[in-house]
Every structure is written in C-alpha cells, then in structure tokens.
C-alpha cells in the first residue's frame, strides 16, 4: 500500500480519475463511446483528439525542462508552421493533391525544426538563459508568422489536409494517432537509448555530467530542435482543425499549458528526472479540465482562474514546507525549508 502511495504517478492519476468521476456523475453520457460507421465517438474520444496539439508540445517541453531549460516559443512556432503549410497549399494549383499536402507539412515542420535548433544554439552554444533565448522567438515568432501570411488569416479547402483533424483511421481520430505515434517515438528515443539518462544527467548536474564525459551541448541543442519539430507538428494539427492559419491566435498560451502539463505529471521544473507518462497524464488532466469547465457553462474566458488554482495547488504541494506540514512529522522548521533555496542549484533554477 505504501509503495502505491509513494509511486510518483499516483497523484496525477488520482487527479485524472477524480476529474473523470466528477464528469461522469454530472453527465452520465460522459463515459459512453458510440461506434458510428466504424468510427468511435464520445466525450472521451473528443478529449483524446483535442489534446493532440498540446500532447506534442508537452512532450518536447518535458525533455527541454529535464535539461533545466524551458521553451516559451512553442506557441509562436505553431503559428509559424501553420502559416507556412497553409500558404504553400493556398498558393498551389492543386490544393487537394496528397503531394502538395505532404510537401506543405514537411515544409512547415522543417522550418520550426530550424527555429528550434536556433533556440538550442542560443542556449547551448551562446549560453543565454533558456527563458530569454526562447522569449526572443516568442516575441518575434508571431510577427514572422504574420509576415508569412501577409497579415491575413489564410484559409484553404484541402481534403487531405482536413483528414489530419477530422479523419479516422481504425476508428480513432487521426490527430490522436499522430500524438500516439509521437509518444511512442519519443519514448523509444529516450528510454531505449541512452538519451534519456544523459538528459537527466545534464539536468541534475551540468558540471558533473560534463566532467563525466557527457556531451551536454549537443544533447541540449538537439532537444530544443526536437521541441521545435513537435511544436511544428502541433501547429499543423491546429491549422488543420480550423483549416486556417491564424498567426495571432494559433497556439496562444500553449506554452503555459504545456509547462503546466509537465509539472502536473510530476516532472520538477528544476530539471533532471522527467516522466513522459506523467506528462501524458498531465495533458489529459488539462484537456479534461477544459472540457469540464466548458460543460459546466462557465465562460471559456474564465478558464485561466481554474488553471491558476491548479498551478498554485500543485506548486504548493510540491514545496517542502507544505509537505512538512502535511506529513506532520516535521514541524515547519525554518532551517529545513530554506536550505534548498540556498544551494547554487536552486539559484540557477530561478533564472531558468
């Protein structure tokens, strides 16, 4: 029993289950999944589909956070990839051909890969703090996307492109399958190779890992690239959902949701140990929360209040002082609590 409670994923899973139970009590249809013409429908399936862009972004974010970094530019990168892809489709003579769509998607993802590598270059080679290095692209990125679309919202009609968000394969929404494939690839990449361990080494102690011969520069650099690539794919899914490239609103605030999902999943923002499974659960929590709030009839604009409350609760529950209070074993001693704040590692964290 103790082992179950000690498991790092127990709280995220409990939160997700609690949300689902709450939902299914207030609307019994929540859990039902119907099959129409071989395709699955239902609230849960909607959550799986709608969470796809956030899932992609959060996966990249988890890895970047594990290196003690952060990527604020993901929302702007989503806007860029959507703009590039839709501009290519809109300008082509054959918007409905599969070839055009594939080229457009590859171009969109490639350009965000380049931007991701640019972020990585600033962080790993130039040595700028991650929050600032990516802030630059966050500021400039939407401007770049607006220039690509010429300041308009580019809309298209392209059947193959629409499949990404509306199509089904094997009964499941294509968007969900894309995110599932991404989860699989990233998991294999970090857990079946040494990359995950090396990433954690870099995040836990950069100097020690360098002395141990870990080439942290290349790892950090490529992880920002990966984050860009995943954000690009997320941008493609988003633009396919609305069939328009909205440079101002695509992926707005998604960086915050992604960070929240990673933290909810139990990955510390201090870097080091990360959990992809936790991140996946974190994404589902956020998506379920959003759908719950919408269902309760609260204006979507008020959603940030709920998210803020969640962030505060999660952060406080992760803090040592609160844990000391809850467990009751340790009275809130000043010395115990302030020590981690004083270590150089903690000082670094505040700037990361």
């Amino acid at each position: 029993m103790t082992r179950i409670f000690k498991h790092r994923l127990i709280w995220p899973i409990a939160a997700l289950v609690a949300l689902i139970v709450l939902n299914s009590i207030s609307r019994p249809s929540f859990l039902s999944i119907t099959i129409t013409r071989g395709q699955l429908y239902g609230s849960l399936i909607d959550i799986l589909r709608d969470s796809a862009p956030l899932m992609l972004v959060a996966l990249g974010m988890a890895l970047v956070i594990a290196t003690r970094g952060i990527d604020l530019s993901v929302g702007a990168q989503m806007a860029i990839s959507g703009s590039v892809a839709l501009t290519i489709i809109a300008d082509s003579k054959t918007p409905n051909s599969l070839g055009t769509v594939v080229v457009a998607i590859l171009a969109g993802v490639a350009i965000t890969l380049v931007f991701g590598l640019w972020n990585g270059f600033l962080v790993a080679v130039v040595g700028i703090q991650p929050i600032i290095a990516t802030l630059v692209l966050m500021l400039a990125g939407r401007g770049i996307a607006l220039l690509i679309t010429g300041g308009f919202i580019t809309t298209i009609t392209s059947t193959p492109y629409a499949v990404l968000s509306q199509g089904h394969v094997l009964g499941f929404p294509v968007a969900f399958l894309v995110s599932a494939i991404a989860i699989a690839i990233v998991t294999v990449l970090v857990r079946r190779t040494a990359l995950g361990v090396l990433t954690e080494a870099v995040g836990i102690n950069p100097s020690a890992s360098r002395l141990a011969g870990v080439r942290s520069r290349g790892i950090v650099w490529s992880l920002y690239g990966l984050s860009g690539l995943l954000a690009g794919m997320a941008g493609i899914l988003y633009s396919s959902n609305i069939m328009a490239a909205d440079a101002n609103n695509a992926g707005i605030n998604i960086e915050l949701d992604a960070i929240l999902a990673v933290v909810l999943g139990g990955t510390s923002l201090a870097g080091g140990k990360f959990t992809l499974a936790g991140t996946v659960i974190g994404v589902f929590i956020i998506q379920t929360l959003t759908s719950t709030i919408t269902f309760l009839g609260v204006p979507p604009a008020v959603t940030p209040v709920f998210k803020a409350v969640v962030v505060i609760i999660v952060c406080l529950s992760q803090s040592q002082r609160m844990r000391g209070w809850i467990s009751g074993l340790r009275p809130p001693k000043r010395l115990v609590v302030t020590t981690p704040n004083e270590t150089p590692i903690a000082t670094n964290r505040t700037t990361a």
Partner: protein
Amino acid sequence: MSQTNVAAPTPTAGPATKRPPRLRIRTSWVPVLAAVAILIIMFLAAQLYFGRFLTPRLLSSLLVDNAYLMVLAAGMTFVILSGGIDLSVGAVMAFTGMLAAKLLLIGVPVAVVIPTMLAAGAVSGLIIGIMVQYFDVQPFIASLAGMFLARGLCFVVSLEAIQVKDPTVLGLQSTKLGDFEWYLTPTGIIALVVIAIAAWVLGYTRFGRTVYAIGGNVHSARLMGLPVARSKVLVYVISGICAGIAGLLFTSYTAAGYSLNGIGTELDTIAAVVIGGTLLTGGSGYALGSLIGVLVYGVIKVSITFLGADSSWTRITIGVLLLAFVVVQRLIVRRANRH
C-alpha cells in the same frame, strides 16, 4: 548549458558609492550607455529618414503614450534585479483597470477606487512573493499563476469592456500641461515620478542595496544578515503596486476597462528592462536604464507606424534587439568573470 551567477557586480558598484573602482562602474553602466547610444542613433536615423521626426510633439507623446509601460518597467526592474521575474504585470494591469471601471460604474467614489486598485496590485504581488519565498516556487511559475488568476478574474468582473466616464480618471490623460508643442499629462508626470522614486530607492536606501545584494548572490546576502525573505517578498509587492498604477494610467489612456488589455505587455516590459541594461541574472541594472529601454521601445513602435510597415515588425524588431542586448550582456559577464 553553463550558468553563471557569480558575474553580477557587487552592490557597491552602484551610483551610491563615492569612488567606485573604475572598471566595475563601467561594466554595469555599459549596457545602459549602449541603450542610450541606440536611442540617439534611432532618433538621428529617424530624423534623417523622415525629415520631421524630432518634433516636440512627438517627444512629448513618446513619454505620454508609454507612461504605463514606464511604471511597469520600474516595478519589473526591482524584480529582475533581485534575480526573479514577474510575468503577471500585464494581466494585473488589466485586472485593476477592469476592477476600477466596474467600481466607478456602480458609483464608488474615485477616492476609494484608486487606493483599491493599488491594493489589488499589492495583494497579487504579495501572493506571488509568498509563493516564491516561502514555498520555494520558481518566480516564473508563481507569477504565471498570478497572470492566469488576474486574467481570469478580469472576465469574472465583466466579459465586455466597461467605459469609464469619471472626470478625475480621464483628466489624468486629457489634461495637457504646457503649450501646444511641448506638453505633459498627469499620467506622464506620474510615470516620471515613479521612475524617480524607483531610482532613489534602488540607489540610496538600505532596501535598494539589499535588492542588488540578493540578485548578486543570495547566499552572501543572507550571510551578511540582510533581510532576504522580507525583501524578496517586497519586490513582488512593489511590482504589483506598479501594475496597479499602470492599470490606472492605462484606464485613463483608453477610457475603458477591458479584459484583453495588456496581453503580451509583460514581454514588452521585460524586453524594455533588459534593453535598458538590467542583467537578467539579477544584481546589476538601473531604473533609469529601464526608462531608456521603454523609450527605445516607443521609438521603434512610432518609427514602424511612420514607415507604414506592418505592425508585426514591432515585435520582430524588439525581439532582435532583445537578443542583441542579451548577447552583449553575456559577453560583458564573461569578461567580468575573467577579471
């Protein structure tokens, strides 16, 4: 990813010291002087290119139009100097504006409304500060929660924009002191006063020196017996109060409270502070530098309007400039490390 925290100059490098070592003072003033140089170059280039750019009217409007940003930047300077960051300022500004508009609408006298705005800002800053200091939450995340909270509360107050008709609030912007050419509004005066107070507090008070010391090295500051916990909470309260003042200025500027006001303002503020020469690692920078940073931002904005170019270029230019300054800072820090 090599982190450097050692680099920030000691608090004695500020203007308060009688005879500081020559190199030290140059190191911390270099980014500010660079910002001044960029501002002058931009003024001259714009004057040469547009012909009639450096007019008294434009210079006055530069100050008046960016008054709210100056106040935000003054508060942000405190936070960044202490080694933190405050992402909530834009949302808190919108929320206090919204709150004021609503209170005025239901007939609360303006003498109550304005203190309420400042108090709302202070409370939000206090919450963030306590989370940062006592619960060990990173400033970035704590202020993010504050941002979400304030932005959501805006919509709780009202989903639509609320017009403000109160003559006192509107008078802050519409009263034009001076002649037709050179003019200043009460909003501009408030902004300058806030900057002046910030500069004085940072340069000449015990609290100000403590902020520099915390940003330089929180370890040593604590060992020196400085009130670290209190000061760290206080910088966020100051930033919150500044956001409250900015809310007042912005409401008076737009004559309405609107929930979507000031989205992205926190980024503009951070950019202005950094361009003004404050080191993001904390411990080095000046409130006057932030004033210069805001002016650089203002000139970029006006120039792009003058050029008739797409307004998205403002963000791109700010981004590029921010990058350039961060790289310059990085080089300065590296050089200071070698000494």
